[in-house]
């Protein structure tokens, strides 16, 4: 459906726009950005399939050279750099958040939405990003893990915001329920 393609483009654009919010650098090189919020929203507003495609589209545009990441980063360089794994997991994270949100759609509470976004937004990204960081930079896995843990509090804040927006959009303009009705 064409409408799906336009929604997919919108959430890729939302993720890019979130990168324009000033970032905080913790020193290890993986900057704190608001962009993971875009990943969470793509999954929990659009559902698994469209959320996955929105993030795949976003990464494709980065690969083709658009500077859509926080701080105006982009191009193939960031997709092979030490923090590449944290980015490459975005489509998977959006898909998992989407699956869980679809599963718990009827009777979705704030607590459930927060748990889905926190667990499935953070775990896949770190499970992918930390080993890649360790492999590319040659540092031990524990060091990469410790260095990355500093980002978890910020990501929990994003999950809290994502859960709030998810419920707001569910009440005002639900897209997941409609899809299940159609199919």
């Amino acid at each position: 459906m064409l409408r799906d393609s336009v929604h997919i483009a919108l959430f890729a654009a939302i993720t890019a726009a979130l990168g324009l919010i000033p970032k905080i650098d913790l020193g290890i090189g993986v900057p704190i950005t608001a962009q993971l919020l875009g990943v969470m929203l793509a999954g929990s507003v659009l559902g698994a399939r469209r959320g996955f495609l929105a993030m795949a589209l976003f990464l494709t545009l980065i690969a083709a050279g658009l500077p859509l990441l926080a701080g105006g980063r982009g191009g193939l360089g960031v997709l092979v750099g030490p923090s590449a794994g944290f980015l490459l997991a975005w489509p998977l994270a959006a898909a998992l958040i989407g699956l869980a949100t679809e599963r718990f759609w009827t009777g979705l509470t704030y607590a459930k939405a927060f748990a889905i976004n926190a667990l499935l937004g953070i775990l896949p990204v770190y499970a992918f990003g930390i080993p890649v960081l360790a492999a590319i930079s040659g540092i031990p896995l524990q060091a990469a893990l410790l260095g990355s843990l500093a980002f978890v509090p910020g990501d929990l804040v994003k999950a809290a915001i994502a859960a709030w927006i998810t419920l707001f959009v569910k009440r005002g303009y639900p897209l997941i329920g409609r899809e299940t009705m159609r199919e």
Partner: protein
Amino acid sequence: MQRYSPGDSPIHRAAPGAKLVALFAIGVLIALLSSTPALAALSALIMALFLIARLSVRDTAQALSPVILVAAAVFALQWWLTGIGEALRSVLRIFALVLAASLVTLTTPFSRMIDTLAAAAGPLAAFGFNPARFGLAAALVIRFIPVLMNDFREIEMARAARGSRRPALGAAGPLIIKTLRMTDTLSEAILARGFETREEAMRGGGRSDAAR
């Protein structure tokens, strides 16, 4: 910021697909090489390619700027944990890989790279991948970003005018619903101009007239 830097060098003229394959080969090579001189030579070779592509020192420095901090942290940590040799090799690996990848981005226009990636995704057609749809979505992302920033600024200004000093977090939900409405109007406009019908005709369906 890393962007296409126009030029007429052999590297600029090379097919994007060939450059991507070469980048992959360099990546494998970097993973396999384990001696410092070999890694240094490879890095020097990639730097030489920057010269052949007539890219400025500024382009090169900008290509490396996103990883400078990580590289410094990795260098310090590796030096402390295993010694200066391994620290040097780790940093050379990161620099070589990022430089090679940046070289591809700097010498390939966005539109050609998108076409190449779409062509590479051709086999995904079996799973419903549609190049025309992909091209439309890619163009829409670029158009939507300033629209979103504008809408956000408007809501922020309206809140400021009402004396609210909290960050405009409460505006996020309404903003998303507003943009979803906008995109649905847009979808209808695109459909009204016959995008789907043309798409089907392009696929040689010919049943589009009957379907309408």
